């Protein structure tokens, strides 16, 4: 059901309760008012009609009374005649009635019958119920029953009733008789009138059979074509008269349950009718029923009468029917109109609201750049404007919050991962922030630290008052000399140990409250390391100095005796030569001595030079130098001699007109000497070529090429490392200490000479120097 309604609503375009409410609000009041108005009108009309019915029934009752009175007076008039009195007298005495008198009374009765066709029969009974006079009419013709045809059986019913009646009462008893010719039952109303003599004793009984149908037709006015029913029932609820079924009296009297108000009306109405109530009821659906007792009888149930007027509400109240039609039209019209208004209102007010909803959805989904565009020029517009403003503010706030969160995260992360203790205290020194590093450094856990005084916790007792004053001053002024700077303090661990620390201060203003943030670094280890370093440096400096001195001294100590040895060996050589005692073998030995000595001196000089460079005592004095004339020329003279001893060609090719450079000539001499020494040493055949020229950058370039053993590619990078030669150990073919090239490299660096080497194993090597 709910789903079905939802479906219908969605088809109608009603989505959401608000739409429905607006539609209902704009539809219901008008509809309700019109329903109420029309209903009031119908009610009024209905009441008017009911009043008419009441009047009808009342009129019927009144007419009945009038009618009865008329019948009574008619009959009583006869009874009061002198003839009747005579009959009564006769009855009182000997029961013999004079024929003449009898005939006169009979004639009176016949007159009554002739005048009114609703009189069926008039009987005069004696007090024991025996018929004395009987007059009846059939087919509008009156007959007098002859003496011999009078009933022999006493009419005990009338005797019984009459004996119970009081003087002046009339009993009306519904009854039926059978028409002897047609064999049909005729409903009658029996008037029973006890007749009293002068002594007020029952003398006779007058009974009048009145044709019920004819009587009621007289009483009940015709209502044309309406379905108004006039019913008269007895005390048991049986129909005595039924305006609809009057043509079928036989069935009316033979079938009990069908012809009873309990069969046709609901229990309550039927009971009220028989209880003698006078009222109008609408309790029978579709009917208007008015009922009232008539013929005030107080006898047995069958002898009581009730009149019922029953109308079909719809048929009898055509005006109400018309009103109802009008009502339907009005309701449909008003309903439709108000529905249209409702839809219009809903559209008018809900479209912006829907847009608002959509907007909020879009914005909620994260699109804060969405802007609602509604132009209604009313409160909604204002709402939307405010909404847009709100979204903008929110967006800014969100961005801000995002930044704040980011920085908070960063700070938290920094704080927690920092190796330094980070803490924050309020103006009283109470700890608010305490990071993991703080716990590690000071030994207090976060729980132990937070909320406690920073002074009591981590400041040594003797510094506390000073620290307090400082923090107070800092927070009071918002600045301090320590702010932004790092000061050294003494801090206290949980175990009571004091340690040196660095403290950085800063202040934060939050909610009008100043807080101090401090970063404390435990510098115990650093302090120790610095001290150790200084000590080590001092030791190293001393050792270096000692080494240089030692080396100098050692060189000197080696060179001096060696020179002496060499000089004396020369002296002995020369002496032997003068004496011509110098044989080839001895000469060879002298040469060996001389060579070895020179080698030692060269090595020592190298070590000395290296030592001088390393200790910084080497004096490098650059000046404008003619590399060719001042250095290369004298060197080539010397090395041409050496090369020739190994049968090597030695060429110097100068292609430069300006072989100048700003270098230290001693250093360059050393460099070239070493390179030429090496070239000759590692070349066994072929040539040594020295080229000097200016490159495109006008730098002087000196290249020394040999056709020696060459250097393997793998060894080239290690070439300038001290104490290295390609071949190591006892197997090496060439003497040398590996210091030479290292020294060359250092000297080149000192004079801004760039040196590079190219070599091919077994083909030769080329050292190229580019001078500054």
């Amino acid at each position, binding site marked *: 059901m709910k789903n079905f309604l939802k479906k219908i609503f969605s088809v109608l375009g009603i989505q959401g309760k608000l739409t429905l409410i607006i539609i209902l609000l704009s539809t219901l009041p008008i509809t309700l008012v019109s329903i109420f108005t029309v209903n009031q009108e119908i009610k009024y009309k209905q009441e008017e009609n009911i009043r008419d019915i009441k009047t009808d029934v009342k009129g019927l009752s009144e007419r009945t009374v009038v009618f009865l009175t008329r019948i009574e007076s008619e009959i009583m008039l006869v009874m009061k005649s002198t003839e009747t009195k005579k009959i009564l007298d006769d009855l009182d005495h000997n029961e013999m009635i004079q024929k003449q008198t009898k005939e006169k009374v009979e004639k009176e009765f016949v007159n009554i019958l002739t005048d009114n066709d609703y009189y069926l029969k008039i009987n005069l009974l004696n007090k*024991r119920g025996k018929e004395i006079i009987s007059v009846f009419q059939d087919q509008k013709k009156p007959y007098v029953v002859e003496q011999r045809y009078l*009933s022999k*059986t*006493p*009419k*005990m*019913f*009338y005797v*019984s009733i009459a004996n*119970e009646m009081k003087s002046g009462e009339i009993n009306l*008893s*519904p*009854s*039926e*008789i*059978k028409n002897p010719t047609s064999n049909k*039952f005729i409903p009658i109303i*029996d008037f029973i009138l006890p007749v009293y003599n002068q002594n007020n004793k029952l003398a006779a009984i007058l*009974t009048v059979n009145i044709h019920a149908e004819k009587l009621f037709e007289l009483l009940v006015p015709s209502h044309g074509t309406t379905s108004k029913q006039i019913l008269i029932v007895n005390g*048991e609820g*049986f129909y005595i008269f039924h305006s609809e079924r009057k043509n079928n009296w*036989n069935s009316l*009297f*033979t*079938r*009990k*349950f069908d012809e009873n108000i309990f069969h046709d009306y609901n229990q309550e109405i039927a009971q009220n009718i028989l209880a003698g109530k006078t009222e109008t009821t609408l309790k029978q659906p579709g009917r208007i029923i008015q009922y009232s007792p008539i013929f005030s009888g107080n006898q*047995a*149930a*069958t*002898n009581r009468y009730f009149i019922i007027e029953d109308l079909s509400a719809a048929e009898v109240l055509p005006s109400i029917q018309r009103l109802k039609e009008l009502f339907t039209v009005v309701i449909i019209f008003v309903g439709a109109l108000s529905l249209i208004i409702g839809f219009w209102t809903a559209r008018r007010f809900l479209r912006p609201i829907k847009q608002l909803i959509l907007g909020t959805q879009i914005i909620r989904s994260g699109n804060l750049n969405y802007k609602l565009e509604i132009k209604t020029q009313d409160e909604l517009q204002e709402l939307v404007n405010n909404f847009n403003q709100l979204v903008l503010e929110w967006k800014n706030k969100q961005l801000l919050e995002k930044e704040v969160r980011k920085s908070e995260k960063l700070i938290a992360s920094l704080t927690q991962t920092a190796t330094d203790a980070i803490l924050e205290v309020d103006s009283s020194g109470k700890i608010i922030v305490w990071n993991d590093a703080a716990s590690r450094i000071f030994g207090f856990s976060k729980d132990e630290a937070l909320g406690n005084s920073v002074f009591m916790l981590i400041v040594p007792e003797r510094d506390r008052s000073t620290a307090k004053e400082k923090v107070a001053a800092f927070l009071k002024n918002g600045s301090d000399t320590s702010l932004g700077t790092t000061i050294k303090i003494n801090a206290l661990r949980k175990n009571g140990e004091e340690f040196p620390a660095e403290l950085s201060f800063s202040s934060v203003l939050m909610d009008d409250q100043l807080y101090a943030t401090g970063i404390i670094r435990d510098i115990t280890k650093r302090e120790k390391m610095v001290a150790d370093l200084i000590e080590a440096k001092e030791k190293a400096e001393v050792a270096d100095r000692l080494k240089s001195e030692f080396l100098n001294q050692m060189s000197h100590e080696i060179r001096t005796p060696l020179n002496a040895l060499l000089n004396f060996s020369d002296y002995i050589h020369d002496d032997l030569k003068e004496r011509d005692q110098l044989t080839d073998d001895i000469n060879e030995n002298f040469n060996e001595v001389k060579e070895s000595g020179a080698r030692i001196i060269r090595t020592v000089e190298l070590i000395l030079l290296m030592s001088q460079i390393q200790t910084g005592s080497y004096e490098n004095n650059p000046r404008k130098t003619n590399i060719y004339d001042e250095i290369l020329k004298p060197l080539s003279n010397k090395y041409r001699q050496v090369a020739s001893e190994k049968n090597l060609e030695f060429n110097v090719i100068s292609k430069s007109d300006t072989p100048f450079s700003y270098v230290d000539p001693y250093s360059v001499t050393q460099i070239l000497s070493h390179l030429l020494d090496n070239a000759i040493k590692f070349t066994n055949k072929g040539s040594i070529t020295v080229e000097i020229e200016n490159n495109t950058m006008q730098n002087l370039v000196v290249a020394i090429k040999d056709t020696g053993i060459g250097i393997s590619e793998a060894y080239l990078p290690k070439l300038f490392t001290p104490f290295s030669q390609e071949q190591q150990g006892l197997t090496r073919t060439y003497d040398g200490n590996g210091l030479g090239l290292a020294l060359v490299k250092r000297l080149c660096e000192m004079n801004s000479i760039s040196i590079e080497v190219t070599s091919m194993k077994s083909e030769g090597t080329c050292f190229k120097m580019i001078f500054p």
Partner: protein
Amino acid sequence: MKKNVILASVIILLSLPITSAGDLKGKIKAEGEGLSDVVVSLAPIEKKNFPAPKETALMDQKNLAFVPHVLPVLIGTKVVFPNSDQTRHSVFSRSKIKKFDFGTYPPGAEKSIICDEAGILTVLCYIHHDMSAYIVVLETPYFAKTNQSGEYTIHNIPPGKYHLTFWHEETEIKSQDIVIPEHGTVTKNISLE
């Protein structure tokens, strides 16, 4: 049940002294003609209680009349009032010995009363005012009703002294004592005024 009834009957028969009984018969005249519907009854002078009969008596309604018009019954008899007519009836009585009102009931329906007091019961109908009937409730089972010729017969009357009573709706009750012999028939003709 049937067995019990037979047994009870045997016991009753055995308990009764096997005596001889007489009959009473006669003719009742009024104004020289035989008078019908006269109830003739014999009540033992020595008062005696008779058990209520098991058989019910019938007061039918046919053609707008009670049938019979006069119904004599022994006290304690149940009288049923079937409606055998074409129309409804509303039978009632306002007699001193018993007042009842059956209300209206349709053809085919049946009502009943038990006549538990001796006397005359006038039965009437509210709808049909000419209808009337009499139930004569007697304290003796020895009764008869005169036929159209005014004749009556009471059979098997134990011998003894009795009050002989005549009742007719239009006359007063007449009573005289009578002796019923051991055997034979007593004839009693009466002329009512």
